[in-house]
């Protein structure tokens, strides 16, 4: 059963890779990109949900946008590697700024989890099952079973992009599936610039502003770090 699942995942990954039309020129890490994914979650009860997710990134900034929720989270990396997180509420045009994270919370692995959805450390710990294509279009398939969780990854190593990533356990399974990539630098810059102009509140001030009706609404929408 597991073998069938493996074959199915690999075949589907390679098909998706062709479908996504990723182009032939390798895009360096510094290149700005808008990467669209779908996220599918399945419960053991058979209940499924699907949402769109967009990864926006430059060399020092990365944002995770959830269009259905009108919400995006952004991390910026300073010259000393420390990360600062901001949460943007796109309907209210407001932002909550978190304090710069400590060095231990700003590790390379932490940044990579935001920037490419998975750390290189975890990929290294996985078994390379097979690979296909070459140069920019090289697609690698990895797998790892650890602590009752199965990780299945289709990885574009020369683009630092997840093509498909599924995590499954007895409790649930979640899968990120690449839909499209856009390397339009102006488009990416516009995305970050627009949010940079939102009215921002320092999260340390939340306690003093609970009676602010807009902030109160944002509090109910939730913050996450």
């Amino acid at each position, binding site marked *: 059963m597991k073998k069938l699942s493996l074959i199915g995942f690999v075949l589907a990954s390679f098909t998706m890779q062709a479908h996504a039309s990723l182009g032939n020129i390798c895009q360096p890490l510094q290149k700005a990109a808008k990467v669209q994914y779908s996220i599918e979650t399945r419960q053991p009860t058979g209940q499924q949900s699907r949402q769109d997710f967009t990864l926006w990134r430059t060399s020092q900034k990365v944002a995770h946008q959830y269009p259905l929720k009108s919400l995006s989270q952004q991390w910026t990396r300073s010259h000393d590697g420390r990360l600062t997180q901001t949460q943007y509420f796109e309907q209210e045009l407001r932002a909550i700024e978190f304090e710069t994270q400590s060095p231990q919370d700003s590790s390379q692995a932490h940044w990579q989890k935001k920037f490419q959805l998975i750390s290189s450390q975890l990929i290294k710990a996985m078994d390379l099952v097979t690979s296909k294509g070459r140069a920019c279009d090289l697609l690698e398939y990895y797998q790892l079973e650890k602590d009752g969780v199965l990780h299945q990854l289709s990885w574009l190593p020369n683009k630092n992009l997840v093509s498909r990533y599924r995590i499954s356990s007895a409790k649930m399974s979640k899968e990120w599936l690449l839909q499209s990539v856009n390397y339009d630098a102006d488009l990416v810059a516009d995305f970050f610039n627009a949010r940079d102009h939102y009215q921002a509140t320092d999260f340390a001030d*939340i*306690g*003093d502003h609970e009676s602010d009706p807009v902030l109160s609404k944002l509090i109910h929408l939730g913050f996450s770090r």
Partner: protein
Amino acid sequence: MMNLKTLAVCISVAGLTACGSDDGSSASGDPLLNSRDNPWYINSARSVQQAQLNSEAINTLRGAAKNIILFVGDGMGASTVTAARIRDGQLKGMLGEENNLSFDTFPFVGLAKTYNVDAQTPDSAGTMTAMMSGVKTDKGVIGLDEGANYAECDSAQGKELVSALELAEMAGLSTGVISTARITHATPAAAYAKSANRNWEDDSDMSGVSGGCVDIASQLVNFEGNLEARYPGLDVNGIEVVMGGGRRHFLPKDAQYNVEKDAANGAEGDRGDGQDLLSLWRTHYPQGRLVHDQSAFDAIDVNSDQPVFGLFNESHMLYEADRGNDILGEPSLTQMTTKAINILDNNEKGFFLTVESGRIDHAHHAGNAYNALGETIELAKAVQAAMDATNPEETLIIVTADHSHVFTIAGYPKRGNDILGKLVSVGETEPALAKDDLPYTTLGYTNGRGFKDLGAETNADAAYGAAIVSERADLSGINTAEAGFHQESHVPSSAETHAGEDVAIYASGPGAHLVSGTHEQNILFHIMERAADLTNKAERALANTP
């Protein structure tokens, strides 16, 4: 058995020697003998003698104080002071309860009723306005009386109050404002600004506001000119020392003005009007020192550098426990206080300084006693530094809070139990269990985000990134004394809240005797004004204007 009244009479009339037992039950024949040898008795009797000496020594004359220092622990309610005192003692190796924070030794103590004109439980804007201006006002309003409506610019005109710092400035004293919060935050702002909304820290916070109101950061940088404009002919020299956080409100939203943040990561400043208020300040005070980090702070020459404008963080300064994580380095509250006094005391006429420990409040809002107590201990150190750097015969020092928090010291822990620990009952060694068979901490909150175990995290605000917890947690295997532990709360809310009970006022120096009893909070202005005769001095200065 001798009753207490009889004992008191015996003590007062017979000098502790002549009263016998009224039932003759004492084996020694002198029931007071044991009491008189008891160290508790001896020490407290000495305290009474000292209190008597303090009362006799106090200078009660109007204008007897050359210098005034007002310390405000934002959110430092009585339970916070008690817990911090114990924590400080335990860090020194004591049981803790017997310890004293620096201001615990002040000779005069009173209580302040903190409510705002429109609110039973207040906020910092209304309370600090009361302390600085002598007039209670509405929640959220700074430097304006209750006739102004919150967030309505048009309503502010003609409602401006005069602050103690402004009077001191007019009287020729040197002046200073220090905070570990943003210097435009409500508490420090009440010393120098007038604003119908505490959140109008820069112009970008005022979109849609009409009526000519000016943001708080602009008011700070233009303080001297604004004060002179209100009183034609008046010539003042501006605030000599300003130190705190909040650089974002003084810089344009343009990365080229960044001080600390990488330009690639966006602008540090928030201002939408393009004004660089730090450059403007340099224009106003070309001889002044503008500093942003620890090394520049250390290099300040207290005898020749003034005015000094120190903005050490884009937003609030870091918690004392977290200070080591700042990229450029930030001075502590104690260091800022000492430096400020050493600058301000160059003026022979004296000085007025207000110092806020702004992040006690933030740690409580985040439900983190570790940092709230750490900040309070640092405030106590700053007060000690002020005591060491000034002459008590000429300096009135007041320590108080603007409001309290819903922070409790609960249950029946044994003496010396770790104040941040799980409750261990008297005579026991293992944590007591509640009716749900789970251990619990001595410290807790009535409301807030609830339990979090964030390990060694020294930034209390990290709790806002974790879910609100309303259920009881099993603390059995958790180190509740660690920096990242957040206490359980009873009522779930997005942030822990202020509380409405009275706060303590501690006073030392000329005029301190007036701090005695339960006061409306705005009396603090009047005590300071009387101690330094601020109004008369200011009026004389005005009368002498050309």
